[in-house]
């Protein structure tokens, strides 16, 4: 528990980038102070050779300027299709899948190819924002490793031949007895309709659904608590109090994007600010966004709910013993707040928790709301074919083993990888005569199949799907299938002997359910009204009957990876390289455990390790052997502060053996991680207790970006922290950010005082006063109170700005190219750091576009200069790669192309289609950094000029801003006081990062404000 009892007046608060930063600052700080602390390794090079090479390079460098412009062709249409305009960016509504439900998206198309996906502002599951996985879908579309044509046992066949053979086999069965279809979640009403048609032809056909990450436990909980198939829908705009029980509701789940936005509306520090309690087994985005975070093992979650319930007086609540990490007064505080909020409160349970915990949460929610359902309501599960995935797959495998299945159609999914070893799916497959697999990629399951059929990406085919709120989204193709792919809808339709094209099927489904005008549906992207709230009553004596069973020893949580999910995104380089929230790991998974647990197991924390060569020291990790039953797995350990003791977490999706160039695990050097499915005892288990973990003696290098591009916080003045935070009470009452902040605070800065030069500076800046008369003055504000550290901005920026991935080896050298990074800090007090449960802060850092930019005067070739609109411009063609600018940047936001990282985009034709045509693809030896999405600014500026008007506030939206689910990023012209960005700049909370350097950054921050319960404030200066 927290040890900081002193007020957060700044003087004794220190932020640590990691445990090693606290324990061994002398090892970490050189990395902040020096760009090349590992330069010792270069001393072996002979000086003469270096000079010779430099001379040769200088002499030859001139030649690179000589280039002959090749003759290019213009190939116009023969007959111009309507609206086909070269270079025009068109937008179409479509939809993607997130955890089994649809999310409305908008796809940008240029010259007939999709180049970007964003959220659909009209759709309730998105509200215009997006998460990392959906952003990266565009790369999945152009993945060169996708299946290209149908094969029969490895030999290419035609689609028709394949379908005829499969249909023959199906027709040979007795009324369909022995035909089994295994699909992922059936989310599409059209597929469900065709499934019904199939059942008419083959009445005995059986349809199974299985995904490794599913909603079984939640479904089971609803059955237990409410006796029906209901799903909870939260309205966080109405939730005065939120209690999270190991839930990652702001990050995972079908509605997380929307929930983040709703949640953020109540995190603005004013009288209506919500209070959030998080009881977590390991730090997650929801915990980071909370006011109070407690460490609780999954096995203890029920006790917490029971304790809350019994204090509230929920009938049937059983008494329970609280875990040692949660004090009685914490529960009292929660209960006090819940009582006050009544129906305006929400308890949220993690979807990986046992059904009993989730059922108990339902009971408490229903008690609080009294059935009125303000913040939490229940709707009937809108899924067209609700199914229990765990039971389904067990039934299928039993049937297969009993030789009852002769034809097996696998529609997407990868059962051989997804299923735990106890279910010997490969053996069961051997007993099936005809196996066909529709899959986007070659995967572990492919080689056991007869027919392997390429599946379309959702941007290539018509489809539909239900969203969590009951609306039906339309998946609109943005491009013809790049390869010979077909969608599941198309295949099913052919098998039932229908000749309709998928468009007609989807259209017909919409007609049948009274969707309305088709063109309007397409323009909007969805049809149908949100499902009405169902009237539910809680089963009597529910709480008393709940039990999660005995838990002992170390508990293991096997959760979907925050980036690559259950492994379906394994070959997506963007997601592999986007740092995972909180841990900042890339390219691998690791066994996460608390510092105390690591110590108990004799595992060395990163700071206790030696520096190994050029690879930064913090990458080396001890490996541990995890034993579950008779399954053993050796995995590297990552010490994750804030995790409950005796709980270890391992993410799924890694350790793929057949997953393309980037997804396939290739060991320490290339990454790819370890297969957590091997440890799952049953088809549906995410939580296992009594796990044995022991140090294996081996080591593994993990690529963790936490210490890359470190801001030298040691030089920071006492109360001018890089990250600032306070409590709501202090914000309202006084000057919570210390003396200096008061002097220089945002509200003292005049928004029209561009570089007046009152303060002394090393860097004579441009006088923006004159420029501001005729030119927009762009500025950005990032609200740390709203940021949850989900990293959606990182992936969205990567997609927008043609940012290359560099691979694990280069990441380990600190050469990742992301233009925006999310720094994580542990907050300590003076010289102490609560190693068990430190407050964790996140801070997105991008180019600050300093008015007096330190990078500019040091560039020998003027490759980085200021624009009249206040942008710090980077001119790739001028850049000669001295990297002086990067060295001089106090924010460490510049990225250098050490190699030709964009080579793949040059060489692989399909990846050329991926590149955003509005942004230059950079070459080796060039510095790059955030541009404030200048291509979007230019586009809007030209548009406004064409219409003889000024750009309106909110018209230019940067990629990160568009993506941010909680709306933490504000961008605009700061000249007008009424513009959102000016308002945020004059906010009391506004501060400049490293203000004492007087770089006058255009990117400013709003400090984080929490709303702790008064009785817990002494304990938790969060």
């Amino acid at each position, binding site marked *: 528990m927290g040890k900081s009892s002193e007020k957060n007046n700044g003087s004794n608060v220190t932020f640590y980038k990691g445990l090693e930063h606290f324990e061994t600052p002398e090892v970490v700080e050189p990395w902040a102070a020096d760009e090349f602390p590992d330069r010792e390794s270069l001393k072996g090079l002979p000086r003469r050779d270096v000079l010779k090479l430099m001379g040769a390079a200088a002499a030859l460098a001139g030649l690179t300027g000589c280039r002959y412009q090749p003759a290019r062709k*213009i*190939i116009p249409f023969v007959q111009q299709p309507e609206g086909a*305009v070269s270079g025009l960016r068109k937008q179409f509504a479509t939809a993607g899948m997130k955890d089994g439900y649809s999310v409305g998206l908008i796809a940008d198309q240029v010259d007939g190819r999709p180049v970007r996906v964003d959220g659909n502002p009209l759709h309730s599951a998105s509200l215009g924002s997006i998460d990392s996985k959906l952003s990266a879908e565009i790369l999945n579309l152009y993945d060169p490793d996708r299946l290209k044509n149908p094969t029969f046992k490895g030999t290419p066949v035609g689609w028709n031949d394949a379908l005829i053979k499969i249909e023959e086999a199906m027709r040979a069965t007795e009324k369909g007895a022995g035909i089994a279809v295994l699909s992922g979640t059936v989310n599409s009403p059209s597929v469900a309709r065709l499934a019904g048609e199939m059942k008419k032809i083959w009445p005995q056909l059986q349809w199974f659904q299985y995904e490794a990450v599913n909603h079984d436990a939640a479904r089971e909980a609803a059955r237990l608590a409410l006796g029906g198939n209901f799903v909870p829908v939260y309205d966080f705009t109405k939730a005065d109090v939120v209690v999270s029980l190991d839930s990652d509701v702001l990050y995972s789940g079908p509605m997380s994007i929307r929930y983040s936005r709703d949640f953020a509306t109540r995190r603005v520090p004013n009288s209506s600010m919500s209070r959030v309690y998080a009881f977590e087994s390991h730090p997650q985005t929801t915990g980071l966004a909370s006011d109070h975070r407690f460490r609780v093992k999954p096995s203890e979650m029920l006790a917490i709910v029971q304790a809350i319930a019994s204090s509230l007086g929920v009938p049937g609540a059983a008494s329970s013993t609280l875990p040692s990490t949660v004090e009685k007064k914490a529960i009292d505080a929660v209960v006090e707040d819940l009582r006050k909020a009544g129906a305006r409160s929400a308890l949220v349970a993690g979807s990986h928790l046992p059904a009993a915990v989730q059922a108990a949460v339902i009971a408490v929610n229903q008690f609080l709301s009294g059935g009125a359902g303000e913040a939490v309501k229940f709707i009937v599960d809108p899924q067209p074919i609700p199914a229990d995935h765990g039971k389904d797959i067990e039934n299928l495998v039993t049937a297969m083993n009993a030789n009852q299945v002769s034809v097996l159609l696998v529609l997407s999914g990868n059962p051989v990888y997804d299923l735990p070893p106890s279910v010997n799916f490969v053996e069961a497959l051997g007993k099936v005569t005809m196996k066909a697999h529709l899959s986007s990629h070659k995967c572990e399951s492919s080689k056991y199949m007869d027919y392997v059929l390429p599946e379309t990406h959702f941007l290539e085919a018509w489809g539909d799907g239900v969203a969590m709120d009951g609306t039906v989204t339309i998946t609109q193709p943005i491009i013809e299938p790049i390869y010979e792919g077909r969608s599941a809808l198309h295949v099913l339709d052919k098998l039932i002997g229908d000749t309709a094209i998928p468009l007609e099927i989807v259209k017909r489904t919409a007609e049948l359910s009274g969707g309305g005008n088709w063109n309007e549906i397409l323009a909007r992207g969805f049809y149908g009204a949100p499902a009405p709230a169902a009237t539910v009553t809680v089963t009597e004596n529910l709480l008393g009957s709940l039990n999660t069973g005995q838990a002992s020893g170390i508990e293991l949580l096997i959760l979907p990876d925050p980036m690559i999910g259950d492994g379906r995104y394994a070959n997506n380089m963007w997601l592999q390289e986007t740092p995972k929230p909180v841990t900042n790991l890339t390219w691998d998974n690791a066994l996460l455990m608390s510092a105390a647990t690591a110590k108990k197991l004799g595992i060395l924390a990163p700071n206790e390790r030696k520096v190994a060569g050029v690879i930064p020291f913090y990458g080396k990790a001890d490996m541990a052997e995890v034993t579950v039953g008779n399954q053993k797995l050796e995995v590297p350990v990552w010490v994750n502060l804030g995790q409950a003791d005796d709980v270890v977490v391992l993410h799924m999706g890694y350790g793929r053996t057949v997953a393309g160039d980037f997804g396939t695990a290739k060991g320490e050097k290339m990454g790819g991680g370890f297969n957590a499915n091997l440890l799952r005892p049953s088809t549906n288990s995410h939580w296992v207790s009594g796990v044995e973990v022991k140090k294996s003696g081996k080591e593994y290098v993990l690529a963790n970006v936490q210490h890359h591009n470190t801001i030298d916080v040691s030089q920071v003045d006492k109360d001018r922290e890089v990250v600032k935070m306070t409590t709501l009470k202090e914000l309202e009452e006084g000057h919570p950010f210390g003396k200096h902040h008061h002097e220089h605070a945002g509200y003292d800065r005049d928004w029209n005082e561009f570089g007046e030069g009152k303060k002394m500076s090393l860097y004579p800046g441009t006088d923006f006063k004159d420029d501001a008369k*005729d030119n927009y003055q762009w500025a950005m504000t990032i609200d740390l109170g709203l940021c949850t550290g989900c990293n959606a901005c990182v992936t969205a920026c990567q997609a927008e700005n043609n940012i290359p991935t560099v691979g694990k080896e280069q990441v380990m050298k600190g050469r990742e190219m992301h233009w925006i990074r999310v720094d994580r800090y542990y907050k300590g007090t003076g010289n102490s750091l609560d190693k068990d449960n430190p407050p964790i802060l996140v801070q997105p850092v991008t180019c600050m576009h300093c008015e007096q930019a330190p990078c500019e005067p040091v560039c020998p070739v003027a490759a980085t200069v200021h*624009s*009249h609109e206040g942008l710090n411009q980077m001119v790739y063609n001028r850049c000669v790669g001295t990297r002086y600018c990067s060295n001089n940047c106090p924010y460490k936001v510049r990225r250098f192309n050490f190699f030709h990282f964009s080579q793949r985009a040059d060489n692989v034709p399909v990846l050329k289609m991926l590149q955003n045509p509005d942004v230059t693809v950079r070459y080796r030896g060039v510095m790059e950094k955030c541009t404030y999405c200048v291509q979007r600014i230019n586009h809007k500026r*030209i548009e406004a000029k*064409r219409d003889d008007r000024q750009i309106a506030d909110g018209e230019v939206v940067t990629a990160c801003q568009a993506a941010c689910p909680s709306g933490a990023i504000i961008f605009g012209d700061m000249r007008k006081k009424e513009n959102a960005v000016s308002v945020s700049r004059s906010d009391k909370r506004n501060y400049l990062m490293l203000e004492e350097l007087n770089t006058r950054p255009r990117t400013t921050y709003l400090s984080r404000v929490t709303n702790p319960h008064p009785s817990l404030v002494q304990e938790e200066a969060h």
Partner: protein
Amino acid sequence: MAQIFKPYANSIASASLLIAAGAPLVLLVSGSLITRSPANTKATVPIDQPVPFSHKHHVKELGIDCRYCHTTVEEQAHASVPATEVCMSCHSQIWTNSPMIEPVRNSYATGKPIEWTKVNAVPDFVYFDHSIHIKRGISCNTCHGAVQEMAITWKGKPFSMAWCLDCHKNPEKYMIDVKASGSESHGDAPAGDHGDDHGHEGDHANVLSPREQIFELYRKIAAGEKLTDTEWRISKGHTQHLPNDKIHEGYKLMQERGVNVSQLTDCWVCHR
């Protein structure tokens, strides 16, 4: 022993000194001349095309508006090159048997597009937008040269960065006020006359928007109407030629049209 250095060795020595001093200069100058010459830039070099399309015939002799074929020039970054069906909208009726337009007919019949060779191109890292230049009244010919004179199209200008910047730094040189024929200022300024009449070019409010003025100029050319000196110069792809005290005409137009020079020279206006 014979003399090693004959008397003429002195001349050789001094000559080599001169050459040594002069050679780098010669190399530099000739190098830069070559890179700037049409041999490298391909400016003014007619480019072979599958169809010997004549802008001169269509623009000047027939008076077809630029926008008949380059349909998106006013709204989009790309001016767009017409589809075969645009050619065939006339050529299904006239010159139906001309061997010159055989490839067009072929393309239309087979559905195979005509592959034109690109004449005017900027590198991939340059983001040019036609629409905003048209909006501001920058004549097509300012960049593309005297298109109405091209029997076979050539690149009118070098398309080098220095050339782009010439206008982006001093747009006043390229600003032009084309009056609709019939308005007062028209007709009294014969081509080639450097007289005083230019003074009142801007005196009367122009009924045409800058965008319309561009295409009015082509109409005048096709109609054979007399052009003012400035119009004539711009139509040939030259800059304005005004006495020093008259240069403010261009500035005035810049202000009217909202051309912001400070922003025009920002790197990220063209490169991103």
